[in-house]
């Protein structure tokens, strides 16, 4: 059995002449919690939809549990739990009817676990789905996805609409899933603190490419933000590669560099800076740096 639960190979997607994904390669190993990040319109939801087979790829291929996304059998689908963006449920149905439908169609269903979740979230069964608030729909969606005890959980902005308490409950639920052996989660979220808390691997989409794909700890190690003070005007060119961002203010230069290593350190030291201090970055800071629209050198006097 392949260790990679999700595999994306050279994925390209065009929407009416506009390229959204330009050759994405991605693998998610078994047992991994993968946080897929990107700005609005970066293509996160598109990747998930292509993975689930609801959107055809323009080029490339995607595999889920060793099966092509376009040929997912009911058995494979039964092993995948999904919370789609916007909480796509059948709005006109009563909650009870929707639950019955999901239960009848599922290959396995944990009644106890589901009932617990329904109680925890305090969801009514006698109302129509469209009459629920957005947060309640999110919770219902989540409960339905968790009830089938999925091997792979795909969550597309699952906490959208959830209040703080519900969000915390979701995170704890996700951790509970993580603790089960061989469970894998792929999720997208804009709340990076949540991602930082549970993800062990992160991917960042920018300009149609996957610019970051590594374990979270490694990311923090490899992307460095430095404040460098030069004795005189900073040099125009530091001869450093992979500069993400650079800002000069007087004698002070702030640079963000990817794949910081000793070689780059040595190059920097040749310019004999007065001081060089590292600015700690959270995942959110790294994300902002990586996805800033104008990644240029900014000079201000």
């Amino acid at each position, binding site marked *: 059995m392949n260790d990679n639960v999700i595999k994306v190979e050279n994925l390209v997607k065009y929407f009416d*002449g506009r*390229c959204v994904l*330009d050759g994405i390669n991605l693998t998610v190993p078994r047992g991994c919690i993968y946080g897929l990040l990107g700005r609005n319109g970066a293509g996160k939801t598109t990747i998930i939809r292509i993975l689930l087979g609801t959107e055809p790829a323009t080029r490339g291929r995607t595999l889920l549990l060793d099966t092509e996304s376009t040929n997912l059998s009911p058995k494979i689908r039964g092993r995948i739990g999904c919370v789609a963006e916007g909480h796509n449920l059948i709005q006109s149905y009563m909650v009870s009817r929707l639950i019955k439908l999901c239960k009848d169609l599922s290959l396995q269903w944990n009644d106890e676990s589901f009932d617990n979740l329904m109680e925890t979230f305090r969801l009514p069964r006698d109302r129509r789905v469209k009459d629920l608030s957005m947060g309640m729909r999110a919770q219902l969606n989540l409960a339905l996805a968790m009830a089938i005890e999925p091997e792979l959980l795909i969550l597309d902005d699952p906490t959208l609409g959830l209040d703080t308490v519900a969000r915390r409950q979701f995170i704890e639920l996700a951790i509970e899933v993580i603790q089960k052996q061989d469970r894998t989660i792929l999720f997208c979220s804009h709340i990076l603190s949540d991602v930082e808390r549970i993800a062990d691997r992160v991917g960042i989409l*920018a300009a149609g490419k996957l610019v*970051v*794909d590594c374990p979270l700890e490694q990311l923090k190690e490899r992307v460095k933000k430095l404040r460098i003070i030069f004795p005189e005007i900073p040099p125009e060119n530091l001869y450093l590669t992979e500069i993400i961002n650079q800002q000069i203010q007087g004698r002070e230069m702030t640079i963000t560099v990817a*794949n910081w290593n000793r070689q780059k350190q040595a190059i920097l030291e040749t310019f004999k800076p007065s001081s060089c201090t590292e600015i700690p970055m959270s995942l959110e800071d790294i994300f902002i740096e990586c996805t800033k629209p104008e990644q240029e050198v900014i000079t201000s006097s």
Partner: protein
Amino acid sequence: MKRFTNCSVRILATGFVVLTLVSILLFWIRFFCSVSLSERMPDEIKSTVIEPSGLLPLDFENDPNLERRSRASAQIRSEPLLSLGITEYFDSISPGGRRSRVILFQSEKNWVYFDNKSGQFVFRFIETEIMPDSNKMEREVQFYIGPEGISEIPDKTLGRFIEPIADSSKFKTSLWKSGEIILYDKKLRRFFKIGLKPKTFVKGPELDTDDTHEPVQIGLLDKNQLLLQLAWLPPEFKISKLYPNQTAVWNYPGLPTKAVPSSETGQYLLILDKTGRIDLLDKETLTFAAAAGRLPETAALFGSEGPATPKNTLSYAAKTIYLGATRSIEDIRDKEPSESEEETLRYAGLIAASLSRDGTALAVIVYDEKGQMKKRTYRTSSRRSNTVTTAYFGSPWAPASSIVKYLAESLHPPVLSIASYLTASSFEAAAGHRALFLLPNSFIAMKARDDRSRMPFRAMFALLLMTPAILLALWLAARILKDASTLGLSRNARRFWVIATLAFGLAGYITYRLSRPKVTLVTCANCGKPRRTDMDKCHRCGSKWDVPELTPPAWRVLNG
């Protein structure tokens, strides 16, 4: 390979759907054009008369006391709905219809049907007996007729008819009155005569193996009788001047007492052959007596469509004419014609009429008692006086209808038009009016049936008729080729579509538009031409992908 097969199946499926819908649409256009043509046909084409008919002595016909001479006339009746399949279907399943095994159904107690299982005819009727006390007693009688006899109980020893034809005239009138029916079996090649009341059964001799007779209809010879009316009218005299007390036409000295234009009485039965020949069957001996004539050949738009046969005429009818004995003036004054005079009826001849496949040409013919043609009418001598040409182009709005019909035929797939040319004579005439995919009534098929011109000229003329269709197909194929090249379809695919469009014309083009890959085209950064997004390389310049509108950063933080 699987993908190719799936794609081919999908294209074929789309093609069939398109072809069916386009064919139905074109059918209705052609149908309304045909209706328009038949409604606007001049009266002189819709009816034709032979006067005098030629069956009576000439001195009678030339008698100055005649107001009107004897005439044989035929008239086309415009019934466009009759040509439709739904009408034909209900007609064929009704008693006496083509597909019905019930030959006659007068009431729940009076019927005749052919039992496929036993291969026998079953008759049921009410027999009325007059009792000694003058009361009428009715009893239901049912009996079974096979090629070996007749019985009141089902009996396997009666044998099996295999492909029987019954004398349908008996079933149109009072069956029980005449009490005699003649049957023919195509496989057994014999005639059978059954007397219903006396319950007699006569088996005729088997036709010799080298006998070329192939009867298809016996007795009352007609087809699609609602479309064609055939009549024979006796002469009309100015009787009031000569015999003021007499009102009956027939009571004129020297004139036969009656003319019976049917086969109800008389010693002969009409037999229609597959070739269109009409023979006389002697009812006593159940053998062929003589040839009575043939169905008349009709005019055609192109040359001639050959001899008229039951298959290639839309409608036909034939009637025998029997004449009674002549009477003296005293007999006429003093007596009414008696029943015994029926026995002296003599066969005088045959009148027959045919209507062409497309319903525009009518012909009538008169044969004498020896089977010699006396008179015929259809105007064939010159193209200008050709009735069919007049029907298509002579009357007001007829040219417009004909042109629209022609254009509708041109929109039909060229390959099917060619198939229509090749199979022009294969279809039964009435079926041509309901044809959807092959068009036996198209101008091309009409030319194919022109047996007066030689094959190479026929074929060239047909190609000429197909010129608009060919030009349209070429233009559409060129458009498809251009689009397919833009889309980057493979050479084989382009070839396939060009050939398909040349073969299927408009239907092929529509199929292409529905089946073409729905891909986005973007401008290639290398050659500047549109290229497909679902291909790794530009199908024009072969360059790899470059998405200039996206400017990803040069750095990557990846870990394999």
